[in-house]
């Protein structure tokens, strides 16, 4: 069974909904430090990437359950977190290996991570919503009988109905309304106002007036309105919280980076596996082949080639030797190296980039959401109207009780139910659509910013291009390639891997030795052969034609193997699509001038900049911002992170560095760039629907306010008006799921 499961052709999601991880073992340390042991049971929490469907679920769970001693293996498909519990001494690395062999990405989760606050908040809101829903339905039951029996029902029966309603409403309002009251109090004590202020005021005033009316045996009580109001508002609040927690779950992938383990060599010279954040400067770290550096370090021993593409954007591997600095994010391609940590893991992901990220986030938080702008007009207007209504009726001589009652009904009927639902419902529907299209939205307001973008800045490597070199087969004899592949299978070098990827599985050369910075040597069918740089096979060349390998066998003349970094298949289509939508674009890349120039020329992009440092990217974005452009930044490297966080809006591919993913507004997965157009279209449609919704809410108030001010808003009118406006706004948001006219 497990042989079938580990068949490589079967890697990743069986329905093709998610990409199989190309090199699942890269950067994955030993999960042992994250195992929690109690009562003979070991527990481990994992983050699994790429599981999309029911088949993934059972495939992964089965693969783990067959391991000896495993008592529980449960994958949560919604957030990709997996809980495993086992008895006995099963090495935890076997569990992660079982999952990554299936073609899914896996990383241990730190059991001490603090994502529970968001989850508690969401649960609190859901419970409050349930309680308010229960109360709203039951009070409505009583209210309807009061309204239906108007004129026939005796006064004492009506009083009893009101009292029962009140008995349900008072505790429920106090319980379910806590979120609003607390938030209103917080901002009021700082001398400001938000949407929760009019909400709290309306609910509490209506409750107070209703209690008073009930005590005096009055005709009208607003108990149903108070509770229904809270119910509708809590729906909006809950949807918003759930959206934010989904974003939080995305950020926990970033935490998984922190949860990586590191092989440290202790004082007695033994290797031990520890959590990345336990590493302190001065510790001796061992980096095995294929492992990703988690802390910045100075190499002490060993010479190897490093893939720094995620750090600098440079696509060619660089050679490192004792004395050189290795930055977190670099992957060891050759032999193992030893180094001394120079920073803590938290400071390591290049402190510069961290600071840039922070600066960017601060910049971005100055963006005012459409909803916030609406509230800033709405709050003072409503309060002024209610106050004027009270004074007006008082002057008209109806008495304090009647004046307060009418002012209160104005507050209730204008309460921003529709306003509070307008944005979250639209965002939830839009992000759900994007999610199905493979785009993961990080926050609700990201939609508004994405919709407003008018200029796109692309990174090159891994964004416009695949980020992986691919063999150019033309002009090379197939048997030469097959022979070269035998050597290449023994190496982790990206060019070797590209060669193997092109040639497929096959025999491996014997007695292969790898010489860092030069190449490989071994026996292919009994003949000595070399694969590597021009220098390594004794060829003198000055032509720089992108990444190349040279292969020589016996006395044959060396053959040149060329590689190209291919464009995403749909790059040209997507660029045309952007143009059609009125967006301009440019490339800002950290790669060499020749590489960028070739890409730009092939894709017909007139504006490009090459060899740009991470700081340079940020400066470029600052300049564009100064020109008044709203930039959509698309990039994947650590070197893009600063720019991603500074841009008006940003997107990163699913294969991007974790930091870049967390710095961007949306993460798209799957092949190609088509998701960018989908995201733009969806966000633009969502923005227009959101604006329509605010328009509808305003229209509703335009009709409802005069009725309330004139004193005609009985509880029945309020109940119908409030639910009707909320329903209209929700239905309008759901319209997004109806396909647009072609």
């Amino acid at each position, binding site marked *: 069974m497990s042989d079938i499961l580990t068949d490589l052709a079967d890697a990743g999601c069986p329905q093709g909904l998610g990409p199989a991880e190309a090199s699942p073992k890269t950067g994955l340390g030993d999960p042992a430090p994250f195992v929690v042991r109690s009562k003979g049971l070991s527990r481990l929490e994992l983050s699994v990437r790429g599981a999309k469907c*029911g088949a993934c679920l*059972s495939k992964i769970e089965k693969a783990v359950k067959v391991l000896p001693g495993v008592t529980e293996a449960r*994958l*949560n*498909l*919604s957030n990709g977190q997996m809980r495993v519990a086992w008895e006995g001494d099963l090495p935890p690395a076997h569990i992660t290996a079982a999952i990554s062999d299936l073609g899914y990405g896996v990383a241990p989760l730190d059991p001490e991570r603090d994502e529970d606050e968001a989850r508690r908040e969401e649960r609190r809101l859901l*419970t409050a919503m*349930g309680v308010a829903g*229960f109360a709203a339905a039951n009070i409505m039951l009583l209210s309807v009988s009061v309204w239906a029996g108007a004129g026939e029902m005796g006064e004492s029966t009506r009083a009893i109905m009101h009292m*029962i309603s009140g008995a349900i409403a008072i505790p429920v309002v106090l319980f379910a309304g806590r979120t609003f009251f607390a938030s209103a109090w917080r901002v009021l004590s700082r001398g400001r106002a938000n949407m929760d202020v009019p909400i709290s005021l309306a609910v509490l005033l209506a409750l107070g007036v209703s209690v008073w009316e009930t005590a005096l045996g009055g005709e009208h009580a607003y108990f149903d309105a108070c509770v229904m109001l809270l119910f509708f508002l809590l729906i909006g609040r809950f949807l918003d919280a759930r959206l934010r927690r989904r974003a939080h779950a995305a950020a926990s992938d970033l935490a998984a980076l922190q949860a990586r383990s590191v092989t440290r060599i202790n004082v007695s010279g033994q290797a031990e596996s520890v959590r990345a954040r336990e590493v302190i400067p001065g510790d001796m770290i061992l980096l095995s082949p294929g492992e990703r550096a988690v802390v910045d370090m100075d190499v002490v021993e060993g010479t190897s080639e490093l893939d720094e593409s995620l750090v600098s954007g440079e696509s060619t591997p660089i050679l490192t030797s004792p004395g050189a600095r290795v930055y977190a994010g670099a992957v060891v391609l050759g032999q193992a190296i030893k180094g001394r940590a120079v920073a803590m893991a938290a400071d390591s992901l290049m402190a510069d980039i961290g600071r840039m990220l922070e600066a960017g986030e601060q910049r971005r938080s100055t963006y005012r959401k459409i909803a916030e702008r609406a509230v800033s007009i709405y709050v003072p207007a409503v309060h002024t109207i209610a106050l004027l209504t009270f004074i007006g009726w008082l002057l008209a001589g109806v008495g304090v009780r009647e004046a307060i009652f009418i002012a209160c009904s104005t507050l209730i009927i204008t309460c921003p139910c529709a306003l509070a639902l307008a944005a979250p419902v639209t965002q939830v529907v839009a992000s759900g659509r994007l999610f199905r299209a493979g785009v993961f939205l990080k926050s609700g307001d990201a939609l508004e910013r994405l919709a407003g973008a008018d200029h796109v800045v692309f990174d090159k490597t891994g964004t416009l291009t695949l980020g992986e070199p691919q063999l150019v087969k033309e002009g090379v004899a197939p048997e030469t390639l097959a022979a070269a592949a035998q050597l290449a299978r023994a190496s982790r070098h990206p060019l070797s891997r590209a060669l193997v990827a092109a040639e497929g599985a096959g025999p491996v050369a014997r007695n292969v030795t790898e010489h860092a910075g030069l190449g490989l040597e071994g026996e292919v069918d009994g003949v000595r052969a070399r694969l590597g740089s021009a220098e390594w096979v004794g060829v003198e060349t000055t032509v720089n034609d992108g990444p190349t390998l040279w292969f020589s066998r016996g006395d044959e003349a060396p053959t040149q193997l060329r590689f190209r970094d291919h464009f995403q298949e749909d790059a040209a289509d997507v660029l045309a699509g952007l143009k059609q939508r009125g967006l301009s674009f440019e490339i800002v890349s950290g790669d060499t001038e020749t590489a960028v120039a070739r890409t730009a020329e092939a894709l017909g992009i007139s504006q490009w900049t090459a060899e740009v440092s991470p700081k340079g990217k940020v400066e470029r974005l600052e300049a564009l911002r100064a020109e008044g452009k709203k930039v959509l930044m698309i990039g994947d490297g650590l070197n893009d992170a600063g720019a991603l966080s500074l841009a008006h809006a940003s997107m990163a591919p699913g294969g991007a560095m974790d930091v870049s993913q967390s710095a961007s507004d949306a993460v798209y997965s799957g092949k190609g760039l088509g998701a960018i157009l989908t995201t733009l279209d969806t966000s633009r449609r969502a923005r227009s629907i959101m604006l329509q919704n605010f328009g509808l809410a305003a229209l509703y108030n335009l009709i409802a306010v005069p009725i309330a001010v004139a004193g005609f808003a009985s509880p029945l009118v309020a109940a119908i008006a409030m639910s009707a406006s909320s329903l209209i706004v929700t239905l309008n948001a759901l319209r997004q799921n109806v396909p647009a006219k072609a």
Partner: protein
Amino acid sequence: MTGLIFLIPIALFMGLIGLVAFIWAQKSGQFEDMEGAAYRILEDDDDKPL
């Protein structure tokens, strides 16, 4: 009208049962994985033969 004396409590009691069931479901994590649950019912091999 006397019917109300027991009809209202019955109505409230039934509503309360629903509320309690909801709170229980929420506390016991029934809403933790909405997507996975939809697929899990299609799996039929979690009962091991005795």
